[in-house]
């Protein structure tokens, strides 16, 4: 049983077309809790998550997991802001990562059906995934990400453009996952959601970490002026 954490970022950065999207970052994350990445649009929240997950190419620096990079890759999952629906049924979508990990079709479907029920999609297993509503899609994406029991789950604004009820349901699922020991790193725009879920906050601005503190400390009174301005609802740049 190897652990991913602590993970260390040293000078890690992502570039695209000559501009640096995020970094260089020096950061260390510990094994427990829910890290919420905050910051205005374009601060590099998505790039940070993608970089850590390994789907954005590291333009410099290094990311050191406590285990080998290969092990780290297979024990994480990512939920995208726009959930990607494979053109198959709800059940087959959730079963897909299990099939990839070598589970038989029959077993994968049994596990996937349970996972679907866990997120409240139990009665629409045979529906084609591309025809789901926004909230249902996000729940499907969550079920698909969690079905392999990852140690670490990245979420990129999982509740953007969802209504209150769907948001509440998603947060319940996230709380349950965190309770089962899945480490969550998520970005959000929703300050209320950040307060409800975060145990730790990363405040990003212009691709750099301005503040990295516990949730109580951050929401109690941010130590940098920019973060405080952001908390007050001002436009920061």
């Amino acid at each position, binding site marked *: 049983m190897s652990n991913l954490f602590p993970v260390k970022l040293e000078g890690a950065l992502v570039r695209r077309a000559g501009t640096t999207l995020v970094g260089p970052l020096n950061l260390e994350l510990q094994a427990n809790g829910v890290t919420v990445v905050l910051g205005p649009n374009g601060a590099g929240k998505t790039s940070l998550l993608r970089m850590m997950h390994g*789907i954005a190419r590291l333009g410099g620096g290094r990311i050191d997991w406590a285990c080998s990079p290969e092990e780290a890759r297979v024990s994480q999952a990512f939920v995208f802001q726009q959930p990607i629906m494979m053109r198959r*049924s709800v059940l087959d979508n959730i079963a*897909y*990562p299990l099939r*990839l990990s070598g589970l038989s079709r029959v077993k994968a479907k049994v596990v996937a059906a349970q996972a679907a029920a866990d997120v409240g999609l139990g009665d629409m297993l045979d529906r084609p995934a591309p025809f789901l509503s926004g909230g249902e899609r996000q729940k499907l994406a969550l079920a698909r990400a969690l079905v392999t029991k990852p140690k670490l789950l990245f979420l990129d604004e999982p509740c953007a453009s969802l209504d209150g009820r769907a948001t509440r349901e998603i947060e319940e699922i996230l709380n349950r996952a965190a309770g089962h020991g899945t480490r969550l790193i998520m970005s959000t725009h929703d300050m209320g959601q950040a307060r409800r879920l975060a145990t730790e906050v990363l405040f990003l601005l212009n691709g750099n970490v301005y503040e990295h503190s516990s949730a109580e400390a951050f929401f109690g009174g941010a130590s940098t002026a920019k973060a405080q301005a952001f908390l007050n609802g001002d436009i920061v740049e």
Partner: protein
Amino acid sequence: MEIWAGITEAFWLLITLDADLVEITLRSLYVTLTALLIASAIALPLGALLAVRRFRARRLTIAVLNALMGLPPVVVGLIVYVMLSRSGPFGVLGLLFTPTAMIIAQVIIIVPLIVSIAHQALRELWSDYHDLLISMNTTQTQRIQALLWDGRRALLTASLAGFGRAIGEVGAIMVVGGNIDHHTRVLTTAIALETGKGEFALALGLGFVLIAMAIAVNLAIHVISRTERGGRW
């Protein structure tokens, strides 16, 4: 008036289940469906590979394949003829003037077409799936499998386009098959022959049978794929 005579002729040929007609129709189907099966087995994975994989000659490959879609069948026929003729490199196989030679020619003609259409369709699907499948640590083979399975409706269209081109093709199979009665004669070559002889009504009749068969095969494939499940992709 000739059209009318053609329709009547086709009607009689069908009603009486003319033995020659049944024979050449079945041969047409055999040659084209076999060619389609082989071509699809080659072209669909290739189209997916071109969508998934970034390699140096990728653009060139795609450009060449697109250009090859317009490959003149007669030229393909000629090349296959030279290859299979007694003095050619594959002459010992004795395949010239056989249905197998016709299948080979048709495969060469429709592979580029199916690859191009399949690649076009799967490229879009891949841009949807890219992040997810990368995130899930899929191997290249797994990515290709996912694209082929989830893109099957679009791929059906690609294959049907290949069928359409192969079933109506006459230049290449005339050259390599030779239009030999009871051996390599198919609907299209029979039509060419009857037209040459001035038997327009019979030629037209055969033509209508050919059209009807092409439509029937298309419909059949669509029905089969729709009953399969979901039916909306």
